[in-house]
């Protein structure tokens, strides 16, 4: 559907110029120079010929069919241009001109009007305020960037035009090829989602790269990315995390769940590879573009020196990969072909006097070992080694058996020519072994993503209608913050077990209630004005007799009144005490872009001090819920350490899924905390001892 952007048969350059230094000059020059095979129609009312081509006074003066229009004139002409496009049946525009939304309210107004009109007319627009785009296979360079990259299988889209120029320049230097190069600009109409979809089916693209500053419709983005990433790797660098919406979140869990967490979770769930830096972005891209994906995580290291080999081995451990252990046969063959002081075990050290042949022989043995999924070849420039020769041999063996080979030729001057050979022969080289190992980690994660079965979701029979009614009533009463009393009822409609509880207005009632509940028990203040009951001395646990009930009643009610003189005290709830078990926290905060973000962590200091929590975007798949539980560092505490009984992880997982169902059914929940959920021993279930819910305003 975006075909006319990439493979147009004819292009109009609206605002073509004969004056060097002008954007209209550079764009036209790039088009001509890139050997574009279609027709080019410069439009400029003041000239009859520009850069050797016939120029037209207006679009309407061109008699041929036009597929693509490049807009390089001031913003105020855009609406008129759209009218002309309609007349000429042009449905694709690259708006390079600046002066729109990015310059203030006047520009924003034009951009809004442009978008409305274009939508009506079914015209698609890239930009405005962008660098343009390049398609190396159709030889289209519709940008004003200096230089055209060589043909390759990496597609790159970027929200920053400046970054585009820098990267183009760098790619030229490194000899990295691109299939498509797209500058998104203001993303007024076309954005990352459209190009992801297009590139997924683009045969010349093997890897999709992106640089994004903001993601508008996070949920749609996830949906599309999840499909695309099953076809080819999608690697994205995302900068500028904070959004106003995330800051608005109020509770402590809210402040934990900033939008950076959402992005991390969203990318993970959509199979997007996140690159923290532009450097990583290209490190990863090169590997995916040039080498096969490893089938497993067993990595072999081949080096002509001890130190770097050991560093690489450490990195393997750090990145939770496995150091491959060779078959007996490989070991024997390595032993017989290498000098006796060489190390034939992984990391293999073929020692300082190794020549290109020794690299060849050892790599051949290693790469064909069935216990190896990928090889890192490290070379330090000794006096004896023919670096270029070694590079040739390594490159020739790479991809044997469909296994990836990455290189780390260390140094600068003496390895330069060798690296050129590697580049030409498509073996990615990394300055340091750790970077290469990190790349293996990323590739192996991607393989796991490809292997993972499609996400499965579980739904439970719940009382959704009832919850709807409770929310509607709360809304009518302008009660948007629901405390424990209401929240208990809501989550129990979704299958959460809650401790029995009775509201008592006086100490006498409290004693009567206590007899019904049974000792030991818990007493809590009930007040719509008090959300953190413990903070005001409003919670007493382990109450064992009527006498203690009376004392606790007095203390809870008077303390609460003292802290908040205006608090409406509705009474004290007398609650069954859940004995034994581990306290965990389930939280939800709604992210403005991605929707409900679910948090899980172990209660107390684990969440509050150590921030040991995991996040996923709802709806959670069964796998998501499982991963959330296992991902936290304190997971061993849940599983049971030193002969302790394991906690009921099945119940915990089910509750995460039920929670996900609740917040998916009711998107107007902006915050929800179940703190604590007390998880008992395996088979004994879990109890939500406290909960609160905040509904969206309006």
């Amino acid at each position, binding site marked *: 559907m975006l075909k006319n952007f990439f493979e147009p048969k004819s292009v109009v350059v609206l605002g073509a110029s004969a004056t060097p230094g002008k954007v209209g000059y550079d764009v036209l020059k790039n088009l001509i120079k890139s050997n574009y095979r279609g027709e080019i129609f410069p439009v400029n009312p003041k000239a009859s010929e520009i850069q050797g081509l016939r120029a037209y006074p207006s679009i309407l003066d061109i008699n041929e069919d036009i597929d693509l229009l490049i807009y390089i004139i001031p913003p105020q002409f855009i609406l008129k241009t759209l009218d002309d496009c309609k007349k000429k049946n042009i449905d694709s525009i690259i708006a390079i001109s600046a002066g729109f939304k990015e310059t203030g309210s006047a520009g924003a107004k034009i951009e809004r009007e442009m978008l409305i009109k274009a939508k009506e007319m079914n015209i698609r627009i890239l930009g405005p305020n962008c660098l343009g785009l390049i398609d190396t296979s159709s030889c289209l360079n519709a940008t004003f960037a200096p230089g055209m990259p060589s043909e390759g299988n990496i597609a790159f889209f970027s929200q920053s035009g400046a970054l585009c120029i820098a990267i183009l320049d760098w790619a030229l230097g490194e000899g990295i090829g691109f299939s498509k190069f797209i500058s998104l600009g203001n993303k007024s109409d076309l954005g990352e989602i459209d190009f992801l979809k297009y590139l997924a089916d683009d045969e010349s693209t093997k890897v999709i790269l992106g640089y994004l500053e903001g993601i508008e419709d996070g949920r749609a983005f996830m949906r599309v990315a999840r499909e695309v990433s099953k076809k080819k790797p999608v690697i994205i660098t995302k900068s500028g995390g904070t959004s106003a919406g995330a800051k608005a979140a109020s509770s*402590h869990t809210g*402040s934990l769940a900033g939008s950076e967490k959402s992005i991390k979770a969203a990318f993970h769930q959509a199979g997007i590879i996140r690159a923290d830096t532009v450097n990583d972005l290209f490190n990863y891209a090169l590997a995916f573009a040039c080498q096969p994906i490893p089938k497993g995580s067993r990595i072999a290291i081949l080096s002509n020196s001890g130190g770097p080999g050991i560093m690489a081995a450490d990195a393997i451990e750090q990145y939770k990969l496995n150091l491959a252990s060779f078959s007996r046969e490989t070991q024997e063959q390595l032993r017989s072909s290498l000098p006796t002081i060489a190390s034939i075990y992984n990391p293999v050290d073929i020692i300082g006097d190794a020549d290109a042949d020794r690299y060849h022989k050892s790599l051949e043995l290693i790469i064909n070992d069935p216990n190896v999924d990928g090889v890192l070849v490290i070379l330090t420039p000794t006096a004896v080694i023919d670096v270029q020769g070694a590079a040739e041999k390594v490159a020739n063996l790479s991809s044997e058996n469909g296994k990836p080979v990455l290189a780390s030729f260390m140094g600068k001057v003496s390895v330069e020519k060798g690296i050129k050979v590697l580049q030409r022969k498509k073996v990615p080289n990394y300055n340091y072994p750790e970077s290469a190992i990190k790349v293996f980690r990323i590739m192996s994660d991607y393989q796991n993503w490809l292997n993972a079965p499609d996400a499965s979701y579980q739904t439970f029979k719940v009382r959704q209608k009832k919850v709807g009614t409770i929310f509607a009533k709360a809304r009518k009463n302008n009660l948007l913050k629901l405390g424990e009393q209401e929240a208990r009822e809501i989550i129990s409609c979704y299958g959460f077990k809650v401790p029995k509880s009775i509201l008592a207005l006086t100490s006498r009632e409290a004693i009567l209630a206590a007899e019904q509940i049974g000792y030991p028990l818990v007493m809590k203040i009930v007040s719509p004005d008090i959300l953190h009951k413990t903070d005001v001395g409003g919670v007493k646990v382990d109450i064992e007799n009527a006498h203690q009930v009376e004392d606790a009643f007095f203390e809870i009610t008077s303390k609460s009144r003292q802290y*908040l003189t205006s608090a409406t005290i509705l009474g004290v709830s007398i609650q069954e005490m859940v004995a034994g078990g581990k306290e965990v926290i389930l939280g939800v905060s709604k992210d403005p872009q991605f929707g409900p973000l679910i948090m899980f962590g172990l209660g107390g200091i684990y969440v*509050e001090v150590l921030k040991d929590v995991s996040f996923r975007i709802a709806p959670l798949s069964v796998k998501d819920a499982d991963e959330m539980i296992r991902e936290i560092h304190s997971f061993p505490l849940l599983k049971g350490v030193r002969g302790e009984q394991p906690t009921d992880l099945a119940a915990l997982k089910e509750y995460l899924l039920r929670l996900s169902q609740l917040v998916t059914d009711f998107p107007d929940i902006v915050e929800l905390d179940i703190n604590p959920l007390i998880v008992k021993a395996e088979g004994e279930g879990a109890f939500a001892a406290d909960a609160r819910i905040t509904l969206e305003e309006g």
Partner: protein
Amino acid sequence: MLPLLIESTESYAGKSLMCLGLGLKFQRDGFKIAYLKPLGKSPIKVGKIITDEDAVFIQGALHLDEPLEQLCPVVVTQDLIIDAYDGKVRGLDKKVVDAYQKISRGKDIILIGGGGSLHEGTFLGLSSLRIARDFQAKVILLDNAEHEVNVDCILRAKEGLRNNLIGIILNRVPPHRIDFIRQRVIPFFQKREIDVLGIIPLDPLLNSISVRELQQILNGQFLFGEEYDTDLIEKFFVGSMNADKAIEYFKKSKNKAVIVGGDRPDIILAALETPTACVVLTGGLYPNDILLAKAEEMKIPMILVKDDTYSTVQKVDKILGRLRVKEEKKVKLGAKLIEREINFTLLYKKAGLKKKRKR
């Protein structure tokens, strides 16, 4: 024997401190003092009995011998409130009269701690108005004039009390408003036969809060400096500006607390390097060790709270000016201010009291 009711136009006007200051002065002038808090609104348990925090405070400060049950015959608890709604409460007035008779024996002046308005307590049959009438008490009305003088309330009180209102005291008056009050407000009241017995200025120290109180209100955790918990805080700063600005502001005022996110090391440092009484770190974010070491070196207590900066500021805001004066230092200062700023000659004359020689 003179029953003297200390009443105020709104809650938190400074009645307890006033009772204390007047009591001390009366004692020094040779009077025998009793104190009665007919309706205790700050329940607290002392040993087995439920009583009122004010009563405990005054009992100690004035060295009174009567038991707490007599100083405060009725305490407003949750149970009492619910019973009152259910119509199950009767005879509270009798309890108060009994207590009064017991404590007043052989005394010259009975200080009665009133409520936040003359009508407070009507619900339980114990309004100040009624108590004033029943005991034929003279009344001193205390007004918190920090923002403005509550003229309406004062005039209404005069209507209700007539000549039993012996005068008013304006409390917490900011220094720049004192002239206005002298020139305009006092004459206004004099014309209506209301005497102004004193103007107590807003004192930064009296208005301060101790590091310990702050920690308790915020439910915070001491990361360092628990031993300095009696240090007093007079001002609050919120560290949301940039570090250069922060230093500029911070160095200008001492006895301050700085409320700042635990993730703002620059501001924390600025606070630690200027005269600061306490640093409150919000968001449950621990500072790094360098900052902790610095706090130790500067002997500045650091409190970690879970709330974000905004909620923390709100809490502090709500509580300021509502604290009970407890610290020795503040009590002494309060008593001194009262003695200095109140026209006792006029007070004694209006109350019909004659100074005795202290025995």
